């Protein structure tokens, strides 16, 4: 069952091609790592998946719904952090979520507050929910970012460089959170990062891009096979420099 389908996506900015004829699928239950060096087009693709920018060419479907044509239905299936999670700093974490949960039509009015409490509990922020977001540390903001992504009971969660700026404890918490949500709730994850080490511990599949083009995709085992005796990191560097 395909959760996300990327079909021949091309995006240009002026004369520069940011994403070039990219195609791949993500299956239900995957935790998929999206790897590529800085400036390879990872954030650009994520922006297109979340409907923030339009591709020049190609289609993106989420749970079968086209993001361009069926924007609302498609986005109802996704939760995302695009770049760093920026919140409304003048509100508390809980108020931020209460404000945003209104925008999910699938959550009835009386369930909004319980849903917010639930996601706060999932990410372990229930104790600090009432504090203003501007008092949060980076790690807490990142967790609140995941909380807001969870709000609408999405089938797919997209995380853009979620480990950026986190300390080792924060990274470990994040990892456990992703694995737990994947195992318990069956949520599919699409995680962009350049921290290969980290991805290796959580991802079953990988999509590797370079300069806007798809370079390789497959399962972790397949990658390990072609890498042979060298580590994935070394192999990745080889792919990027060859």
């Amino acid at each position, binding site marked *: 069952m395909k959760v996300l389908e990327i079909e021949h996506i091309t995006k240009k900015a002026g004369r520069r091609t940011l994403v070039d004829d990219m195609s791949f699928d993500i299956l239900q239950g995957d935790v998929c790592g999206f790897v590529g060096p800085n400036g390879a087009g990872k954030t650009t693709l994520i922006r297109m998946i979340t409907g923030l920018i339009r591709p020049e060419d190609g289609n993106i479907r989420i749970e079968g719904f086209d993001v361009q044509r069926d924007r609302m239905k498609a986005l109802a299936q996704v939760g995302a952090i695009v770049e760093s*999670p920026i919140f409304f700093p003048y509100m508390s974490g809980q*108020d931020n979520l209460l404000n945003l949960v209104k925008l999910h039509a699938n959550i009835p009015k009386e369930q909004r507050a319980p849903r917010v409490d639930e996601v706060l509990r999932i990410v372990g922020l229930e104790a600090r929910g009432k504090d203003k977001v501007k008092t949060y540390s980076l790690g807490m903001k990142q967790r609140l970012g995941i909380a807001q992504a969870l709000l609408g009971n999405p089938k797919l969660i997209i995380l853009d460089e979620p480990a950026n700026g986190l300390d080792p404890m924060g990274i470990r918490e994040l990892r456990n959170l992703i694995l737990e949500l994947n195992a318990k709730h069956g949520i599919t994850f699409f995680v962009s990062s350049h921290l290969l080490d980290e991805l290796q511990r959580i991802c079953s599949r990988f999509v590797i891009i370079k300069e806007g083009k798809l370079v390789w995709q497959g399962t972790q085992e397949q990658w390990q096979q072609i890498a042979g005796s060298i580590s994935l990191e070394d192999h990745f560097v080889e792919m990027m420099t060859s």
Partner: protein
Amino acid sequence: MWQLLQSDWQRMWKRKKTMVSLLLFVGIVLLDCMFLLMQTLGAFDNVSTVPLTAQNFPLFLLKEVSFFLVLIIGPILMIDSFNGEYHAGQLRLVLIRPVSVMRMFAAKWINLAFMMGIFLLVTFAAGEIVGHMFKPSVDEVVFLNPERSYHKLEAMMYCLESYGLFLLILLAQLSLTGLVCTILPSPIICYLGWVAVAVGSMYLSNTFSFLLFGISTIFQWMAGSYAHPFILPVMVCMIPGFAVTMWWWNRRNWVK
């Protein structure tokens, strides 16, 4: 749609600026009331004056506060909502949800329109109360046109109609500011853009002087002595301005 309105309305009020603007505005209204109470005549322009009474007090109060609304409070609240949230990257949280971008823009527009209505309502209420408390109430009052006099109730309707027209001008400004905020990058540049539009359009044609000098336009229009078209250009700024911006929001790339 209702949820979008609610969510945007809530964010608007959680921004400190909104409450501070409202409080400052109330302060300005009261100061202007005091300023008017020191006078015995109300001036429509440099030449025409009439005695200040309880019946025309709200109208002259609107004249005093209009610049604050058009040049400061209006643009700041509008720019914060149309450009500030997006510029700071906060709007992304809304954009990635299953909501229609067109409706989101409409929600912002409606909320701001409502907000402008509140500011005008505060002014009108203060004008009525202070006017009746401290200024003589008369049975008949004239406005800019000396040949036409109005009874008490008619005078109140006259003032209300003027307030309504001023709200229309603010709505035209709202649509134009929305467009400016879509074209220009940052809040500061947007503010400059709005001033440039308001001042520049006046040099282009006197028809657009209502954007900056709305109150004198209304004085003359209500007296039947306004020399330029008024309602049509206001509507042209307001409705197509709204539609174009809404369409643009639906098509644009959100890169912040």
